[in-house]
């Protein structure tokens, strides 16, 4: 049972959502946007967050888009990870999304919620990070809508101005046409938070990787990408890439930093072999 009361508002349009947010705030109360609600409800039950009202944005038509449009693929922020997998417009995103939580929870977790959540993994951000120059987000807030390059929108966490929410993400169609892999390693169970997750693509001869679970938040590194794209054996490149990762590798009950580095090296070498075959 959730130990405090709050209001529920379900918006039908972007304008309605932003307006009710501002009205609640102007009355001295705290509103939050609500996607799948899975994080909000679990944290509220434990009184780890407090707010006075939720504004459910997932049924707003723009937040439900899931389609090809012009030379891009559009993913509404209110679309569930299960629907993204079913539509499979971008196999890499489907693969990364298919390892978040379990199937029933994926029927509720939204794309926007996974990127905006406070849990540090944000695994579905990884495919977009690999194409950050070819991906954009549409956000909406008190100042209307803004089109933001993914590079500015997300640097391990979502950067929004006060009162804004994510409406959709768009990525160039070619992102779905290059060789790509997503690998998640967990400590023991198939369904768990990651020891780490790695997404890798090959664009011509260039290798790009993005990581979650290795350090405090998802990251991508030009130095690592250059190392992995160099002419050397898979093992040598994997070793040099992991050597580039700073001292802040996560060291917790799921796995020590040393174990994460070891497993990451093996995983990168295997992924390189597969993607360059």
């Amino acid at each position, binding site marked *: 049972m959730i130990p405090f009361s709050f209001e529920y508002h*379900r918006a039908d349009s972007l304008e309605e959502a932003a307006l009710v947010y501002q009205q609640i705030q102007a009355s001295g109360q705290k509103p939050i946007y609500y996607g799948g609600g899975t994080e909000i409800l679990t944290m509220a039950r434990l009184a780890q967050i407090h707010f006075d*009202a939720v504004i459910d944005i997932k049924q707003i038509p723009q937040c439900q888009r899931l389609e090809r449009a012009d030379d891009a693929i559009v993913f509404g922020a209110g679309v569930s990870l299960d629907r993204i997998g079913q539509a499979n417009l971008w196999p890499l995103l489907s693969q990364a999304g298919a390892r978040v*939580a379990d199937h*029933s*929870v994926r029927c509720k977790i939204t794309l926007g919620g996974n990127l905006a959540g406070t849990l540090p993994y944000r695994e579905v951000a990884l495919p977009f990070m690999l194409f950050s120059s070819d991906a954009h987000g549409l956000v909406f807030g008190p100042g209307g809508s803004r089109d933001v390059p993914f590079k500015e929108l997300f640097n391990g966490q979502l950067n929004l101005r006060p009162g804004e929410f994510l409406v959709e993400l768009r990525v160039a169609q070619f992102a779905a046409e290059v060789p790509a892999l997503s690998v998640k390693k967990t400590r023991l169970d198939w369904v768990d938070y990651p020891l780490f997750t790695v997404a890798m693509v090959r664009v011509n001869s260039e290798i790009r990787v993005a990581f979650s679970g290795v350090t405090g938040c998802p990251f991508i590194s030009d130095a690592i990408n250059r190392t992995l794209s160099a002419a050397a054996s898979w093992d040598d490149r994997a070793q040099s890439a992991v050597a580039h990762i700073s001292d802040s590798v996560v060291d917790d009950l799921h796995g020590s930093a040393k174990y994460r580095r070891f497993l990451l090296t093996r995983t990168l070498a295997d992924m390189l072999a597969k993607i360059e075959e």
Partner: protein
Amino acid sequence: MFSYTTRQSLILQVNQDALTVTPRPSDTLLYTLRQELGFTGAKPGCENGDCGACTVIFDNLPLKSCLMLTAEAVGHEITTVEGLHHTALQDAFMDHWAFQCGYCTSGFLTTAHALLTRHPDADRQTMVEWLRSNLCRCTGYQEIGDAVWSVLQARQT
């Protein structure tokens, strides 16, 4: 805009009946199903989205009712285990000894029932992927998998 700001009457579609409830806006669907409507087949386990004991069928998809607000469920079709009557799946659970204490059973039945509806052609891997949403602390999962698989196979032949 649908705003539900204080305890009022709401209509929920549960097991093909329109039922009136008066939850707080912050009540979860799990809480309302059990405390107001008496559908105790939806079990509270972790209330954290992990165990699946609270699973109901929501517009033909399995959904953990601890992860949904009651107000969010307005306008949708909900089926709890009480809405499944003498199905082949329930018989298969008995035939395969797919439960011991039974606490997880309603969650497995609703997840599996949604699978049969949505993917009657599911292969074993898809079945396992769906059933991974639910935890059982008594059986070794083998019996549960065998029960669900037997119904899928019967439908596919």
